[in-house]
């Protein structure tokens, strides 16, 4: 599973760093390093709905507050 987080200007200002750090932590904590690949990308052209995150090409809109929820529902549920 590939999870890509936008780190462009607009998403950066909306908190993509916190999201990256949370996801890195959560992936490690759940020992999913082999199953989930985290990556960054610049602008996805959807700045209005940032922070933009794609999970195997499906687009999600996250904020630092909803990241844990997203991880539980979308990542953890699917890999297990």
């Amino acid at each position, binding site marked *: 599973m590939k999870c890509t987080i936008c780190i462009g200007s607009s998403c950066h200002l909306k908190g993509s760093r916190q999201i990256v750090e949370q996801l890195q932590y959560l992936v490690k904590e759940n020992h999913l390093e082999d199953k989930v690949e985290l990556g*960054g990308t610049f602008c996805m*052209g959807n700045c209005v709905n940032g922070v933009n995150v794609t999970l195997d090409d499906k687009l999600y809109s996250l904020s630092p507050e909803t990241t844990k929820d997203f991880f539980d529902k979308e990542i953890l549920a699917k890999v297990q």
Partner: protein
Amino acid sequence: MNNLCSDIGYTSINKWGEQLCGDRVEIVEQGENSTVVVLADGMGSGVKANILSSLTSKIISTMMAANMSIEDCVSTIASTLPVCAVRQVAYSTFTIIHIIENEEAEIIQYDNPLLILLRDGKFVEIPKTGNEIEGKMIYRSRIKLQENDFLFTMSDGTIHAGVGMDLNFGWQRPEIIKFLEMMYDPSYTAKTYSTLLVEECNHLYGGHPGDDTTCCCVKIRNRQQVNLMIGPPSDRKDVNKMQALFHSKEGKHIVCGGTTSTITSEYLKKPMIADLDYLDPEIPPIAKIEGVDLVTEGVITISKVVDYAKDFLQDNESYSEWGYKRDGASLIARMLFEEATDINFFVGRAVNPAHQNPNLPISFNIKMRLVEELSECLKSMGKRIKVSYF
């Protein structure tokens, strides 16, 4: 014609408690490749010294740049400088470095500590001849310059550093030469090198300089071009033109901005791989595209570079940050401030609709202003700047 150019930088600190510096550095360009640099040290300190050294440096640099003889310059100074009421003399010491076509230097010295030449990191004694003009002993030298020559001229605040405090007789010339040789790194800019020396003096003075202290450094180096692209063109049709022009330029290439780098990766047909390491929490990570030397985010990164540039021209305190860090802004700062002598900006005027949000500090106007500010700063660093808008 050669490919050499001179990078000139200086740093001063004031005598403790003084608001004005009595040392003055004046740099006058004489055509494309010749420059006159004058460092003058006015007698006394404060306002009086400041006036004396300002007049001296300004008069000499202007007259020298107009090809007048040193005899004329000296007699003009002797007859125009205001006479000190206490000491009944008009007095300011000076060093003139006249760089001719970036391959030869004429050095004229009057009473400042003698100029120090480092060639490939080793001290080289410069032969000089002395003659008397208007009762002043003036030394002249003429030397050929080569790449990686560093010329240091300084006011006597340097050799007096630490007198009666840490050092009995001050920081003498052989010690200064040893220090400069020890610190040698050919990648230093003139500004950085002069700051290193002056900072060391300040340290020896225990943070309370007993005299105005100035070092001016001239570095002879090869010209090096760096190209920086930021923003997509306002007209989509110009994408290929802008990219083609950018990539055809000689030298290193920096691409700034999310959309811009996406376009570049499409144009080059090479994937863009973004990093996820936040080396500086403020600055978004960098990315890699084969064929481009550096790919970074746009506005946030550049605004940090502008901050660094402004500080570089003032106290150069943030050198300790951008001088070694590996985040996007520090990498750009090193490439533009240290490596580059000629910088081409390729600026796209497209407006990113998502950025036109009053809650985000990254609107179009800010981007344009940042580019202008940055190119002004780089010009003040003595670099040749070309900005093309698309």
